[in-house]
């Protein structure tokens, strides 16, 4: 299953990639592969913007606008004027999510 096409904010800077393969290890959707000792993006539409690759790339070769793909969280963010949040970090018990 894939979500909307051509919306993922994932960016890859091949010049910074050393081919360590960490992105391949952490990506839950098999977005990356290793070709000629460098990472390549196989299918950007599979990216769910979890941020695992960017956060674990020690060389800054990946960038993604990380966030939750949750409508309730995004709506909460619009209402409260802040970041999308589904408030399940224990602060509020009025709404349950994810």
């Amino acid at each position, binding site marked *: *299953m894939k979500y909307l096409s051509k919306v993922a904010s994932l960016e890859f800077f091949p010049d910074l990639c050393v081919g360590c393969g960490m992105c391949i290890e952490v990506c839950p959707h098999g977005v990356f592969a290793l070709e000629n000792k460098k990472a390549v993006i196989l299918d950007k539409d599979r990216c769910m913007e*979890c941020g695992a690759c960017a956060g674990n790339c020690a060389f800054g070769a990946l960038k993604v606008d990380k966030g939750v793909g949750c409508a309730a969280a995004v709506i909460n963010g619009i209402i409260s004027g802040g970041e999308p949040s589904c408030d399940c970090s224990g602060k509020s018990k009025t709404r349950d999510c994810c």
Partner: protein
Amino acid sequence: MAELKFVKPGAQEKASACCRPTQSAVQSPAWITGTLMTAEGAIPLISPDLTRSDYWEHVKCRTSAFRNSYVVNPGLYAIGAPGKNSDILVSANYKLSFDALRKALKGLNAWVLVLDTKGINVWCAAGKGTFGTDELIRLISITKLDRIVDHRRIIVPQLGAPGISAHEVKKAAGFKVCYGPVRAEDISAYIAAEYKATREMRTVAFPFIDRLILTLMEINPAMKKRYPLYALIILAIFGLQPKGIFFRDALVGGLPFLVLGLISVLSGALITPVLLPFIPFRSFAVKGWIAGMLFVILSVKFTAMFNQMNTVLLIFTYLFFPLASSYIALQFTGATTFTGMSGVKKELKISIPLYILGIVVSLILLLFYKIGEWRFI
């Protein structure tokens, strides 16, 4: 292993109380079967076997709005008979996550490090950062992990990766983060393969059964919070007569719409998620609308309730209920394993104005109907 010895439950309550004040405050849970004495203090020993009461808690976790209370105290636990070279596996302090891990560790000797994720599962907590680099470094430090084991590797579930920077953990705490498989059940195979996960172990699927289980958390809030309000409004609209509010009118006139409301909830919160890959288009709002429209058409055509229905109400039916189903289906993006924020934002940008417009027009239609009913025109 020479410095380790096992102690029966209860015998070391004082020793554990000093390092775990919160744990001693409540009765020790049944899955703690003893205490493992180490040079660094007493470590609770946990059972890899899940009991009936564990499974009952899982049912409640999946359905109840009080699932925030199914937490495990953060800290270090022992499973089997771990020693200085045993693996350390990291988990969240959500009971379901913790139970999945200890069940998967049956037959292994390992350490389990539970982070304080406020009772949230690994993946969601990693997204929020509570299952994060700082929390992992903090737990490594307070449990004196560097003195408990001789090696310097720590197995973090792969779905914890959004919150963790492996290179920063290494720099700050000296431990090398090895990302384990996505599913706890693959852990023994991963360890046996010398910390290598297959592509399949690294990938998240979203099978039928997972989608079905997760619909419970969609249906529950929709029925508890939104549906009663909707039902009240419908009953008020149909019961409202020039001479007051009549219960009989409310019920007779409102019943088809109460049923349609229920159908919309089921269409958006159950049918759309379950049939997700089979409903055309990638947008959840569109999928939900299609499912909703289909059910509305079927209901109107094949149930007697809608025979000779007022045209204005029929237009309202075709307008409002597919949109309700669409909105509810859109909420399921939060439960899926593959929707990203950019996509959700794009969907909302288009759909929210349409929902608002739909509600406004629906209310105008109902008003129009009421005016007609009261024969003012």
